[in-house]
């Protein structure tokens, strides 16, 4: 307008700008405490499996005056046990469908819903935080930012692969133990055929043999024996491979879960010891409830530096006294990378008389992919590194076979036997 004084036309645009401002600020934005906006969140599943899409719905309701333009943004949940890398989207929870942002106008009493699907890539507890909301005038000249809390927790469990370990009745990898299996009937070993004695159940009658020989014969069974075992899961920082936000935790948990499923499913008594950010311990018991408790412990466990397999023998003595004193327990060490501490632990426990088994989780492929995807290394460098890592792993395997049977777990193909303990 000042340019009108010397008679120039240059300043006329300022009048147009002022008109735009007046136009936009006609409708004032409500103050944060007066907005009357509420947010509620719901998910299709609060307990889900890895890789299963979960639908998230975030509903925004307006109990105040009309707001012309709202930009709502929701942040995908974070894994409670994950390391925080600021400025990077979480690699554990990935949006697979829909958008986490919404642009809308909302009248009094109106309601809008932001909808998207998430896939979880690692087991654990995921926590949703708050959603950020930007109230804007239509031309964006006025803006207020709000953060509305909408907490929710989703627990993600490891997924059992289609090709799982089929251990057969009361056997895991061909071992049988000394604890009687809890299963009766079908879970028995066939021993012999003998003459019928009064009181024998009819279902045990061998009708074919009876017909052939002309006298009543029954099948004789012997109750199967299960293992009394402890699965020791190593989640210590030194033995978990990591690349950026990716760690081998998911693979280790999945393999431990598969192993426990097989052992429990075959009627064995299974216990758990998790070495990570916290010390998880569950005494050996039978049944699916026991499996559930162990899975919950695994889901809550995180990578840590405090607890390591170095003190496995002490923990066994402290928490699993019966197994420890009788030396009955069969131990399964599940780990992604064999450390010297683990090697020492396996050797000492083996010398004490425990039957030791090492399950190496092959996380090298996942680590290589993560290194390439996050552009930490070039593909040829990754390939070169993997060759060294495989060679090193091979030598560790050879050392482990002196004290334990060695198995390798690979995602998608399960367990393969890599070496039997050298018996002297």
């Amino acid at each position, binding site marked *: 307008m000042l340019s009108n004084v010397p*008679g120039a036309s240059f300043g006329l645009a300022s009048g*147009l700008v002022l008109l735009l401002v007046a136009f936009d600020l006609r409708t004032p934005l409500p103050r944060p405490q007066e907005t009357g906006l509420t947010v509620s969140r719901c998910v299709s599943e609060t307990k889900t499996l890895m890789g299963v899409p979960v639908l998230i719905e975030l509903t925004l309701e307006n109990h105040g005056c009309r707001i012309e333009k709202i930009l709502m943004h929701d942040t995908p949940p974070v894994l409670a046990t994950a390391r925080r890398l600021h400025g990077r989207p979480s690699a554990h929870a990935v949006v697979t469908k829909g958008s*986490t942002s919404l642009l809308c106008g909302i009248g009094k009493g109106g309601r809008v819903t932001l909808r998207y699907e998430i896939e979880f890539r690692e087991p654990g507890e995921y926590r949703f935080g708050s959603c950020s909301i930007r109230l804007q005038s239509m031309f964006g000249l006025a803006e207020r930012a709000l953060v509305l809390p909408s907490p929710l927790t989703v627990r993600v469990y490891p997924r059992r692969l289609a090709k799982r370990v089929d251990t057969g009745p009361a056997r895991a990898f061909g071992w049988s133990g000394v604890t009687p299996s809890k299963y009766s009937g079908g879970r028995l070993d066939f021993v012999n055929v003998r003459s019928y004695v009064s009181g024998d159940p009819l279902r045990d009658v061998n009708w074919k043999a009876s017909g052939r020989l002309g006298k009543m014969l029954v099948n004789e069974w012997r109750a199967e024996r299960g293992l009394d075992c402890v699965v020791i899961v190593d989640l210590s920082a030194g033995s978990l491979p990591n690349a950026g936000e990716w760690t081998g935790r998911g693979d280790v948990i999945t393999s431990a879960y598969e192993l426990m499923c097989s052992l429990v499913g075959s009627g064995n008594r299974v216990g758990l010891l998790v070495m990570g950010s916290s010390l998880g311990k569950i005494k050996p018991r039978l049944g699916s409830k026991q499996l559930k408790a162990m899975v919950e412990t695994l889901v809550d466990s995180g990578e840590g530096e405090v607890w390591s397999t170095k003190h496995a023998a002490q923990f066994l003595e402290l928490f699993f006294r019966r197994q420890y004193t009788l030396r009955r327990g069969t131990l399964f060490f599940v780990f992604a990378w064999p450390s010297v501490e683990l090697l020492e632990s396996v050797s000492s426990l083996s010398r004490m008389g425990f039957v030791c088994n090492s399950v190496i989780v092959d996380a090298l492929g996942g680590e290589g992919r993560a290194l390439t995807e996050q552009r930490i290394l070039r593909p040829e460098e990754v390939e070169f590194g993997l060759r060294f890592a495989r060679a090193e792993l091979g030598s560790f395997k050879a050392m482990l076979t002196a004290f334990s049977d060695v198995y390798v777990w690979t995602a998608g193909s399960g367990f393969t036997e890599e070496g039997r303990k050298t018996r002297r």
Partner: protein
Amino acid sequence: MILLLAAVVAAVVSSNALATVMVAACTASLVVGFAWKRVMPTLLAGLFLYPALAVALTTVLPTALSYLASGLFVIVICERMTFEYDVSTVLGSPTGIDAEARSLVSEVSRAHTRKMSLYVALAALVIAGSATTSTFTAYAWVLVAAAMLLVLVVLVYATR
């Protein structure tokens, strides 16, 4: 695209070294704003284009009218562009967007267009008023246009 085209036309028509530099600055700023979806570089591009376009328009329109027309053009295009940045952050999701969210976005877009049309109509009223005044007096129409705009500003703001 429209803004870039207008910038090129303005540079060619005005055939002025300073205008060419301003148009180049406008183009650079526009590209930066568009690439990073930033409001400030886009507004800066509009600011660079305004005088150059106005000078170019003086070849077909009276001076005051060309400044008003140039200002209106730049404001409308820049405002729509910055609005589209917000829309594109929502619609440009690599994992898609559901139909309900899409309809909500298009509702906001329609509301924005309505409001912008009203603004353009009011500004056009001012331009028409100042053009009419210019037929009666050769000197006062800049003042008349400015006064009309001020009155409109007060009126619009007073109706809140």
